[in-house]
């Protein structure tokens, strides 16, 4: 117990020690977080009228970002599966960084849901035993369970492994391996349940579609690894923890397969909507070509499709065997899928309305600042976790500094 307090104290001290660059980076993020917090406080006082949402388009940028990020969090399994099931040694070097990313991203998801609430002061109504929990009827109550569960599982695994490493002890398998396997199933569940949020709504034909969960997973397994590839390179450049090319190129292979499946499913969707267009295709028509003279989403979706195609071509060709080509592919896929799942999936679900009205949506400045603040908060958390985790991983921060780091 006393050791643990010492550990926490050392972590705290370390958090405040770093280079000028570290301080500059963390300060910039903190300022962005505070700007976002300010925008949210404004929204809390004035109500959601400060957003671009309406009675007709009643979910917007917050839920769009939430949906996208659940996928990124789920994608931690793309490291866990090769590391623990296929026993790829090189993936063990990085699997912890994937789990830490999942933690930061899940917290972002929870924040995005919270800022979307009209009455955040009543959030306890969602938490048993204080509230009245509509389980199992409401898929949103399932989402509360799976998201918080995923957060706890990953917190447990990551902190247990780090603490063992700090104490220079071999982790006891039974304390974490079962949770690792649980986390695999659980990761799939968070994104599937989030897809079911939309698929379960029979009144919205754009969402009421069995392909949606599969596409969610396929695109998540591109966007998540894309972010990891970029993050791992930053880690190996800015910290003293060596990440080889091998894990990065394993991720490239996984992304390529996932992206091919994603684009195939997109093709299936487009065929169904447009080969023999019914009234149910109105939302897709609005998204891709505009409807009754309204075409607010058209530039967004074609940007997304272009980026997706560029990403796919780069991934599938030798160009991405070079790290520069791979990075370009990652950026293209990440941004493309972010648009596709945000503006491309959430908004058209509301346009046209079930009664046929076309009301367009665009986020306001205040709404955008809240989103930016949450992204900055995620980056802040992940940076801090890496700042503490890297010295533990490479042995420089350890319980008994007098012993050599190699005693493990």
């Amino acid at each position, binding site marked *: 117990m006393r050791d643990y307090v010492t550990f926490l104290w*050392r972590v705290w*001290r*370390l958090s*405040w020690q*770093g280079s000028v660059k570290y301080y500059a980076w963390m300060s910039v993020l903190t*300022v962005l977080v*505070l700007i976002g*917090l*300010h925008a949210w*406080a*404004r929204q809390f*006082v004035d*109500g*959601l*009228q400060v*957003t671009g*949402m*309406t*009675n*007709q388009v009643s*979910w917007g940028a917050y839920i769009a970002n939430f949906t996208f990020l659940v996928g990124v969090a789920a994608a931690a399994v793309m490291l866990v599966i090769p590391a623990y099931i296929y026993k790829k040694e090189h993936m063990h070097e990085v699997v912890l960084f994937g789990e830490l990313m999942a933690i930061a991203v899940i917290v972002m998801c929870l924040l995005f*849901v919270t800022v*979307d*609430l*009209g009455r955040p*002061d*009543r*959030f*306890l*109504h*969602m938490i048993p035993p204080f509230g*009245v*929990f*509509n389980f199992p009827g*409401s898929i*949103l*109550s399932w989402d509360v369970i799976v998201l918080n569960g995923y957060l706890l599982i990953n917190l447990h695994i990551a902190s247990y492994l780090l603490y063992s490493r700090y104490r220079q002890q071999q982790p006891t398998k039974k304390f974490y391996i079962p949770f690792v396997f649980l986390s695999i199933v659980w990761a799939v569940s968070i994104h599937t349940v989030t897809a079911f949020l939309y698929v*379960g*709504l*029979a*009144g919205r034909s754009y969402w009421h579609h069995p392909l949606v969960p599969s596409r969610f997973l396929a695109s998540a397994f591109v966007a998540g690894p894309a972010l990891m590839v970029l993050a791992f390179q930053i880690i*190996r450049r800015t*910290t*003293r923890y*060596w990440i080889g*090319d091998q894990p990065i190129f394993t991720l490239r292979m996984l992304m390529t397969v996932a992206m091919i499946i994603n684009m195939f499913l997109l093709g299936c969707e487009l065929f169904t909507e447009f080969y023999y267009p019914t*009234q149910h295709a109105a939302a897709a028509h609005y998204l891709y070509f505009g409807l009754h003279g309204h075409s607010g989403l058209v530039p967004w979706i074609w940007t997304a499709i272009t980026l997706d195609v560029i990403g796919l071509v780069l991934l599938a060709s030798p160009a991405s065997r070079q790290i520069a080509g791979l990075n370009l592919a990652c950026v293209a896929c990440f941004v493309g899928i972010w648009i596709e799942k945000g503006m491309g999936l959430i908004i058209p*679900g509301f346009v*046209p*309305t*079930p*009664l*046929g*009205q076309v009301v367009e949506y665009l986020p306001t400045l205040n709404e955008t600042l809240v989103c930016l603040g949450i992204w900055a908060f995620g980056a802040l958390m992940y940076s801090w976790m890496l700042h503490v985790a890297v*010295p533990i991983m*490479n*042995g*420089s*921060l350890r319980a008994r*500094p007098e012993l050599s780091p190699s005693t493990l």
Partner: protein
Amino acid sequence: MHPEPQNEVSPKTIEQVYQPLTRRTFLKGAAASMVGLAGLTAALKPLLELESGAITLDDLLQKHYRELSADDLKRIMAGIADKTEKEHGVRPAVRDLKPLDGVEFGYALNLTRCIGCRKCAHACLKENNQSRDDANDIEMSYIRVLELDKGAINLETSNVYYDPAKVPQKDKFYMPVQCQQCRQSPCTKVCPVQATWQEKDGLVVVDYNWCIGCRYCMAACPYDARRFNYQKPTITKEAINPNQSYLSNRIRPKGVVEKCTFCLHRTRDGKYPACLEVCPTGARVFGNLRDPNSEINYILNNKRVYVLKEEVGTLPRFYYFFDK
């Protein structure tokens, strides 16, 4: 090629972690905390504009409507009346009307007779105290009147913003849509906190003091029947209807969802809904589905009846019918 692995963090930083706190680092930390705190205060400054009484401890601790004792509910309704009086200068009579035994409400609308005058949409506003900027602002009305092209019932090409000099237009017909009080209501199924539910008489209601404002019910509704209070409701003193009830037309708080309740503060009191009373063509028929001799049952048994979006499986208690 990348440099070889160097698995060592800057020894200086780590050394400091192991050493006791010095006066210098303590002061540095304190200064940084002050700057951080100042930033946080500045960020949260808008919260100072929060009206006093906007969120009270009582509000936070209040239980779900169905778990409230009669005394609690009485106290809460008195509080609502106080608040309305303080903020709007009108003291309403806030009541809690329970569903009547042996009653299940149904509504039918004659599409042959409806002329699209939107009197129902306006009457709804007057009755139910929705937020509005002026008398012409019917966005929050629970009724949307669709103008449709003759020849089909095609919602996709409908228009709710029609504004001709005179209705009805020759090549159009009109279809008012409001909450269909579904027997299999998607909105109540998806609500994560059971803030909306079906009452014994079939009315789907919202506990405005329990709703968390997630708007999942609005996404679930196939009839666009729900409205959200994106701001604190705006309504003038003169416009307020003081005959109010807890589950229907009392002034709503900011950030919650509301909807048509078939005017339960009227209909559970033996009156007709406001939209029916105002209809100049007598297109609307309201009554008890469980009473075999009711007019609504006569319509269902003798007219050609149409259910909106039957394919969605919601089983509405709202019906459309035709005269000829």
